[in-house]
């Protein structure tokens, strides 16, 4: 009987402790990662909505983000091996562009079914800045890193636009 109680107590204690720790971790990331970015994004949205920048951007990206060809051009530019590591860090550029596109989708400049291919078009550079570190985390040899960096960068030139085309066809019937 005593044993049973101890086991139950331990089990419950473990679960509660885990949940509590999970909550603590969550609040940590929310404060350290999510809210700062929300503040930054809010400022950009405010700037875009109040000033005329929004209309300028709208005119600029209407042709690019509102058609398959335009999105392909965006994805190829973002995948250029010299450019992609510069565009990568922290996905800041992808997040800002994503937010700007979101504003334009909300205003009706870009039809909502383009949201899916756009998500891939603005992001072929994902992780291109991080290849050596990522490979080191996978305990890769220096020789592998030497080959892996260009291999991933060149692969993106092919797979970046491919992803946009797949997403374009996968977006049929969405929000229309």
């Amino acid at each position, binding site marked *: 009987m005593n044993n049973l109680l101890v086991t139950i107590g331990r089990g419950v204690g473990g*679960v509660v402790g885990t949940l509590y720790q*999970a909550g603590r971790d969550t609040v940590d990331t929310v404060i350290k990662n999510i809210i700062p970015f929300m503040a930054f994004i809010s400022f950009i949205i405010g700037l875009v*909505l109040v000033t005329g920048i929004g209309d300028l951007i709208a005119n600029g990206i209407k042709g690019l983000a509102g058609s398959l060809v335009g999105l392909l051009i965006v994805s190829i530019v973002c995948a250029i091996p010299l450019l992609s590591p510069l565009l990568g860090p922290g*996905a800041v550029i992808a997040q800002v562009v*994503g*937010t700007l596109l979101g504003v334009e989708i909300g205003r009706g400049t870009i039809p909502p079914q383009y949201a899916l291919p756009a998500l*891939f078009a603005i992001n072929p550079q994902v992780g291109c800045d*991080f290849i050596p570190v990522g490979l080191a*985390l996978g305990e890769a040899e220096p020789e592998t890193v030497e080959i892996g960096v260009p291999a991933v960068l060149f692969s993106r030139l092919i797979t970046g636009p491919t992803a946009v085309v797949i997403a374009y066809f996968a*977006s049929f019937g969405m929000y229309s």
Partner: protein
Amino acid sequence: MNLFADAATVAEPEGAWGAVAAGAEYFIGIFQQGGEVLWSLMGGILPTLIVLLTAVNALVRIIGPEKIENLGRKAAQPGLIWYPVRYIVLPFLAVFFLTNPMAYTMGRFLPERYKPAFYDSAVSFVHPITGLFPHANPGELFVYLGIAAGITQLGFGLGDIAVRFLLVGLVVIFIRGVVTELITTRMMARKEKAAA
């Protein structure tokens, strides 16, 4: 009868001072708008996000991320059937359980020639997964959330795009893995030939 209807009419400032005042209002207006957006984000997404993150974090802790290590060892095998495991199942589970950036440590179970491809595959999944499982990459949510905000503003639900983003993401990481593996193998072969 409204006693206050015309009581408080103050003349708008005019001339140079008026321009300054208008400029100040315009200036502060940018931040008021930004503040409204921030408030709607913190009131709208954030509470749901906190609860969701807590639940999934707890689930991951209870299951134990080390469980997927066996799969990593299996995925190291050559052969066609292991391609989807290596470039769809393993990246998905790695990103889900280990999250960005620890997911890439799963590469250590793979032979050298697969490592760049696995990295490419895993890192390409850290955004498509955020539509449904934001815990995997909480620092980079706005690639998806930014665009999703526009959809919400139009009055549509987000389920459709979140699921499609995830599924297309899985297809894309598979293609990335296969293509990068091909390029890596060729480059390694060429280098060996040059060395010999």
